[in-house]
Every structure is written in C-alpha cells, then in structure tokens.
C-alpha cells in the first residue's frame, strides 16, 4: 500500500491530538490543584499552576472527612464482590458450558434475560429486602446482592465452551470428583478470563454510586464514591482537601489500569460482543 500524507490524515491527526489534550487536561489540572495551597483557589484570574506546592491538602484531608473509612469500605466491598462473584460466576458458567442437565438452555436464557433489567427498577425493593434481612449498612448487605452476576456467568460460559472437548475425561479416568475436575483441570486454564471478569467487577463496584448510597446509611459505612458525593453535597470542606480526596480515590484504579490495561479493555470489549 502506498503511504501518502493527505489532508484527511492531517485533519485526523490534529483532531485526535486535540481530543487527547481535552481528555488529559482535567487530570493534569487535578494533579497540580491537589498540591496547591488553599488560598490559591481564591485567586483571580484562576490559574492551572500555583506559585508553590505543598502537601497541606493531603495532610488535612484525613481530619476533614473519614477518608480512611471510605477506603476501607470500598476495598472490602469491591474486592469482596470481585472474589465471590468470579468464583460463583465461573462455577455456574462452567456448568452451563460443559455439563448436560435438564433445563440447561432454559435456565441460561433466564440468566440472560435478567441482564436486561435495569438496576434502578430494582433499587427500592432491594433496599427493603436488605433491610428486612437485617443487613442494611453492613458489608454483607453490600456484597451478597452482587455476589453473582449474569454478565459474569455469560462471560465464563463463553470461555469454557471454547475449550477442547473431552478435557474432563482424563479427570474422570483418574477418579476425580466433578468439583475437582473443575478446580484442578478447568480453572487453571481460565486465569485470564477470570482476571478480566474480576477487573470488570472491581471497576464497576469501586465506582458505583447509587447502590452503596442506598444500602449504607451511616457515614462510617460509606464507600469512596458515596461518601465523597455526600461531602461535596454539603460543601463544608475546603477546596484543597476535596481535590486531594478525589485524586486519592481515583489513584488505585488508575494504577491497576497501568499494569493490567489489557484486562480492562477485554472486559468492556466482551460486553459488546454479546449483542
């Protein structure tokens, strides 16, 4: 193929570079602003860069809001959901993919149908249900309703179905139980699918707002998303610490993204293939 520089190519390059700036600029501003001294926010005209930088906001933020609690809660909730859901989804996906049983097709179709129900329709009864179970404002109340997901079952099933046939036979000959076949033969083959699914769950739950907002009521049980949203709503903490807290809340997922980008992208791309 010939390679020519055309007007279209230049236009596309300029456009994508401009978009790159538009995407990155707010993050770079945040990075600078979190280290600004508080009085610089009042300066007019506002500037991106400050005359000098300090760690004041990061020192103060822990006293202004219970950020440590928010972090702890977010990690327990999102990592808890991730571990449980990957485990339960992979088990169900495995059975749907590789075991013959009555009702396989029907049940799997029903699982897919539940994927179409928007959360907003379920949220009020879910609140009532979790309250009745005495789990409102607890970790279990946050984790258990999300401990399995239709999308996860779908994703794991499509992986297991692509594995070669007769893989189980060697296990059966060795006298392994069905669970041991799954655990010792199948699971080791699907590490990358499980990481993809795990990261998909981690990202969604780490960032979720409405769900933890409904199912927690005390400040000490709030997640980062819900807790920070409440504190911003009250507008009673200083600018610097608010931005420092936002930066800290974003950082963990961004770090994971840098090292495991492939898995983030895979999860999203797979969700598009089910259409």
């Amino acid at each position, binding site marked *: 193929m010939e390679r020519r520089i055309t007007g*279209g190519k230049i236009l596309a390059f300029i456009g*994508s570079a401009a*978009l*790159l700036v*538009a*995407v990155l600029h*707010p*993050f770079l*501003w945040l990075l600078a602003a979190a280290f600004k001294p508080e009085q610089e926010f009042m300066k007019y005209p*506002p500037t991106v860069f400050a005359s000098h930088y300090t760690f004041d906001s990061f020192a103060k933020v822990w006293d202004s809001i219970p950020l440590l609690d928010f972090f702890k809660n977010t990690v327990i909730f999102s990592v808890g959901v991730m571990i449980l859901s990957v485990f*339960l*989804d992979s088990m*169900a996906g495995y*059975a749907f993919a590789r*075991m*013959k*049983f009555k009702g396989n097709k029907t*049940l799997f179709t029903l*699982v897919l149908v539940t994927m179409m*129900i*928007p*959360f907003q*329709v*379920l*949220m*009020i*009864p879910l609140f*009532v*249900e979790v309250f*009745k179970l005495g789990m409102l404002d607890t970790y279990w109340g946050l984790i258990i*309703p*999300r*401990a*399995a997901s239709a999308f996860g079952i779908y994703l794991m099933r499509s992986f297991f179905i692509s594995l070669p046939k007769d893989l189980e036979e060697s296990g059966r000959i060795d006298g392994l*139980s*069905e*669970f041991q076949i799954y655990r010792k033969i199948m699971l080791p083959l699907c590490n990358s699918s499980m990481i993809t699914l795990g990261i998909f769950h981690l990202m969604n739950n*780490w*960032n979720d*707002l409405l769900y933890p907002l*409904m199912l927690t009521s005390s400040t000490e049980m709030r997640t980062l*998303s819900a807790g*920070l*949203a409440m504190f*911003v709503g009250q507008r009673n903490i200083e*600018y610097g610490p*608010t*931005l420092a807290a*936002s930066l800290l*809340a*974003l950082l963990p997922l*961004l770090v994971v*993204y840098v090292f495991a*980008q492939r898995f983030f*992208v895979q999860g*999203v*791309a797979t969700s*598009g293939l*089910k*259409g």
Partner: protein
Amino acid sequence: MTKSFKNALRVWNRPDRAAYLFIAPALAILFLFTVVPLLATLVISTLDMDVFLQVKGFVGFDHFSALFRDERLLDAALHTIYFAGVEVPLQIALALLIAVYVSKNTRFRKFLRSVYFVPSICSFTAIGILASFLLDPQTGVYPNYLTHLGLPRLEFFRDPTWAMPSVILLTVWRSFGYSMIILVAGIQSIPDSYYEAAQLDGASKPRQFFSITVPMLMPALSFTVITTMIAALQVFDQIFVTTQGGPLNKTETIVGYIYNTGFQMAPYDLGYASAISVMLFVLIMAITLVMNQYFLRKESDMA
C-alpha cells in the same frame, strides 16, 4: 467420613446432578436479588409505604393514575429525554469517528486508545467533583478561558439553560472511550480483504466507511447504541454530584426524582417511588424493543 456422606457424594457426583450444585449458588443470588425485587416493585407500587417500611394501606393503582397528573414527573421525564436524545448521538458519533481512526494497531493509535479510555475507569463522583471545580463561574479555569476567547462568561452548572448541556458534555467526555473500545473490537474483526477489494474498485475512504465499516459493524454498533441509551435513561450519578437536579430543577431526571421521592423528601414515599420506577422500566423496555427491531431490520437490509 460417614457412610451416608460418602453415599451422598457419589449420588451427587454424576455430571447431570452435580451441575445443579454448580449453578445453585449463583442462581440463588440472581433469584433473590434480581427476580424477587422485580416482582416486589410491582407489589410495593400498589402500597402506601414509606422509607421506614411503615405500610399504611393498599392503594391499588392510585399511584399509577397519580403519575399522569404529576407535573414534576413530567418535567423530569422531559429532562431525561433531552439528556438521552442529545447525549447518546454525540457519544456514539464521537466514539465511531475515533474508533475508525484508532483501530489500526500503530504505536501512536494504541496510545490514543489507552488514554481515551481513562475517563471511563474513573467514578462519576470524582469526575463530577473535578468538573464542578473546573467549570465554577468564579474560580474555574474553563469559564476563564472562554472569556479570553472573547466569549461570554458561562455559568455552566449554575445556569438553568446551560446546566443540562454541561452535564451532557461531562458525560460524553467520560464515556466516549467506553463505546470506542467496543467499536474498535468490532472494526478489528472486519476482514482486511473487504477493504482491499474496495480499494481495487476505486472506492474512496468515506465510501468504504459507509459501505463496509458501518454495515459490518452493525451488531456492535446497535449494541452500543442500545446500552448507551439504557444508561442515559437512567442517568443519575453525574447529576447527583454536580447540580443535584438544580438549578430550578432543570436537571432533575426520572431516577433523580425516584431517589428524591423515596429517600430525600418527606413523606419518603417508597410506594409512589416504586410506581415511577415501574413506569421507567416500561419506558426503557419499549425503547429497547423498538430500537432492537429497527437495528434487526437494518442488519437484514444490509446483509
């Protein structure tokens, strides 16, 4: 191990039986926390019940007839449709345009892909906080840039007219990368030979885009449009953080109104809030089905 336990193990170890044990935990969770709430919504919407779960009586379809006289709900529905009607086309158009450009695996384009996706992994809470600082009429840098360009100083989230466009802009900024990833996967699965054949026939780049890329991309594209639309009809997070439905309720959406009715405003009417969510469900299902039919026809037309 006792004998009966061993016996039970043997009975349940047949693949056709063990399968039920494999699916039971996951299906139990889905049943308890998706199917049961779905049915419960219908029940709760016929009750006079508040957030403290005090049931004061059965009201039948009263909540549903009240929906049609509720002007605040009508406004919320119109705001939601405004949001979805503008946000979805913008997000998809931008994502498609970008996806076509970045789907080639050169180093620079791979880099663009990874950067464009970054906002999608950030919570709307953090992004919303960021935006309300950047767009603040007094202390924000962006309104200030605008005045440097000789444009009027916009109030963004504080201005009743501009609040919704600002929320839309924020949403497109955060989510176009997500749609882009799905579309890139779709574009990369189109065989190169199609484009090579088109090139031999002398088809221009735009012609190739409309005659090969778009039709071949239809499944991924229709999925993206439909899921983006479903998400847009449920818009809540970014508004809760930035405008909280204001100013003058101009950005209150259906889900925002459900949340306010049930959890924010006395008398914390969960029954009525459930009736609204049933209506929202019907609306979402209807729009999804119509769009699905439309895309299926399109796909068969193009095949």
